[in-house]
């Protein structure tokens, strides 16, 4: 009976496990294997054994390491900005006020649109001729009204950050809001009777109780930010020059522009290692067994 039940269980999960194994483990091993060879698939030259020279190349050429630094910098800044704003939004939406359901739907919509849409939409907003940003700066007689936002390194990063934060802050807010809603209201009553100010209650009660939700939201966003691709591809294509080229974009160019599967495989393995580290932090924070 037990053996039959177990076999039934394995049969049921088989499809999901096999599908996910094929589409993740196969690329993983293929990348690992390729990263040890010189293989430019369109060159017609047979692949040769490369040892660790692809890895040596990514750490010594002037593409990978600068790209890694940019990607880490963007990840830290975007996650920090989005978490702070998302926390404020979650606290605001946790209060009862007329029309809250509509407001929640309104601020949540940006999360549901394709990342390509957020990129295109903000590219349009920052467009020097048909955009909103320069128009309003001109009307209000503010400086920077003639900026070509995507044409300079730091303003291009600013535009990418805005597009990313606009789409992803709602995700953080939604997870934090769910976390806030399971905090029982009477502990705030007790704090108020004890004479705690609203800020003290937030610092001493809300933040510690919200920590699990904060960690979950921040870890997911860290992973997504670290792998940012769609927004960069559509807004700046890594430019001006290579100044907004992030790791996923560099990896895309290696695979689909240069067809260099050795070099691309080495970058992919580096990305997988970082993703695994982030996943390891996640499983420490959030125990898998507790789900069932």
């Amino acid at each position: 009976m037990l053996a039959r039940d177990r076999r039934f269980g394995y049969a049921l999960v088989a499809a999901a496990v096999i599908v996910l194994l094929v589409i993740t483990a196969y690329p993983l091993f293929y990348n690992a294997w390729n990263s040890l060879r010189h293989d430019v698939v369109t060159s017609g030259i047979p692949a040769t054994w490369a040892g660790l020279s692809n890895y040596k190349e990514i750490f010594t050429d002037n593409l990978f390491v600068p790209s890694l630094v940019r990607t880490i910098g963007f990840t830290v800044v975007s996650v920090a900005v989005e978490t702070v704003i998302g926390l404020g939004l979650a606290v605001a939406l946790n209060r009862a006020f007329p029309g809250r359901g509509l407001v929640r739907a309104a601020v949540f919509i940006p999360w549901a649109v394709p990342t390509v849409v957020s990129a295109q939409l903000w590219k349009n907003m920052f467009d020097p001729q048909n955009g909103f940003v320069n128009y309003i700066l001109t009307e209000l007689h503010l400086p920077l009204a003639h900026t070509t936002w995507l044409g300079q390194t730091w303003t291009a990063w600013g535009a990418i950050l805005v597009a990313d934060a606009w789409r992803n802050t709602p995700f953080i807010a939604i997870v934090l809001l769910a976390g806030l809603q399971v905090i029982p209201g009477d502990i705030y009553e007790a704090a108020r009777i004890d004479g705690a100010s609203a800020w003290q209650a937030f610092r001493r009660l809300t933040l510690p109780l919200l920590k699990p939700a904060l960690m979950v939201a921040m870890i997911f966003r860290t992973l997504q930010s670290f792998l940012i691709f769609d927004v960069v591809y559509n807004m700046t294509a890594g430019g001006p020059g290579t100044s907004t080229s992030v790791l996923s974009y560099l990896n895309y160019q290696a695979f689909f522009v240069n067809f260099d599967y050795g070099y691309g495989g080495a970058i992919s393995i580096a990305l997988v290692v970082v993703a695994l580290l982030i996943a390891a932090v996640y499983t420490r924070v959030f125990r898998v067994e507790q789900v069932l």
Partner: protein
Amino acid sequence: MTAAAASQGAARGRPAGHHWTPRRIAARTGFYVLIAIFVIVSLFPFYWIVITSLKSQADLNQGTTSLLPGHIDWGSYSFDLTQTSATGLNFGRSLLNSVIVALSTTAVTVVVSVLAGYGLARTRMRFKGATLGFILLASFFPIIAMAGPLFLAFRNLGLLNNYLALIISYLVYTVPIATWFLANFFTQLPRQLEEAATVDGATRLQAIRRVILPVAVPGIFTVTILSFIFAWNDFLFALSFMETPDKYTAPYAIVAIGHTQYQTFYNRIDAAVVMITLPVALLVIFAQRRIISGLTAGALK
């Protein structure tokens, strides 16, 4: 966490009968101003693309002169939907491609995840923790690291430029979250359900179909909506595997539409952006609670 717990927590309001001191009025006003800013920042860009999509090329050439739409011209929409470019790009076709691929992905996801979720929740199989852990890990896998090797695999299999290449790849977006959500959902159903059915002589698969599926409809609905959104929103796999413009999905088509060698037609691009955004915006408006419960399920235990 469950939807019931979420709505329970939402009931916490401000007790009535406070005095309206100037300080309180200022705090209240500040609060509503803050809410207004959040709403405007969220929605204004949509307004901007809608009015840009309704401008004629002549209006666009003058640059921005007003925050209001001015003369409304639907030409970009009819252009996008009816004209096919020299390279074979037609946005109506791209939308159709997206619908086919997203619906197929959703259907496969529902079947695979219902089975796996049930197996994890209701059998005494071993390695449950490891299986769930692996499924979670798969959802952390960098998409770009999959795209290169899968491109070669699909090329060898003759599946490039084929819907199947996308449907298979999209399962990495949908199956992990769907399986997690449904495993969690099934554990909350009473066990007597299947026991009664199996006593009646039904096999376990029959019991799942006749007894479990009907009561699991809300959970399956949530998974359906989430899967559709994730499949609808992909860009990178479409960019990697779809080679001819008649096979582009809608998000990929945006990149190619509205550009000629000499000019960018923002009105045509934005008309396409509006058409892509509408279905997911409607889903959020009508199924907000389900989407949120799906996204936050389990995340807060």
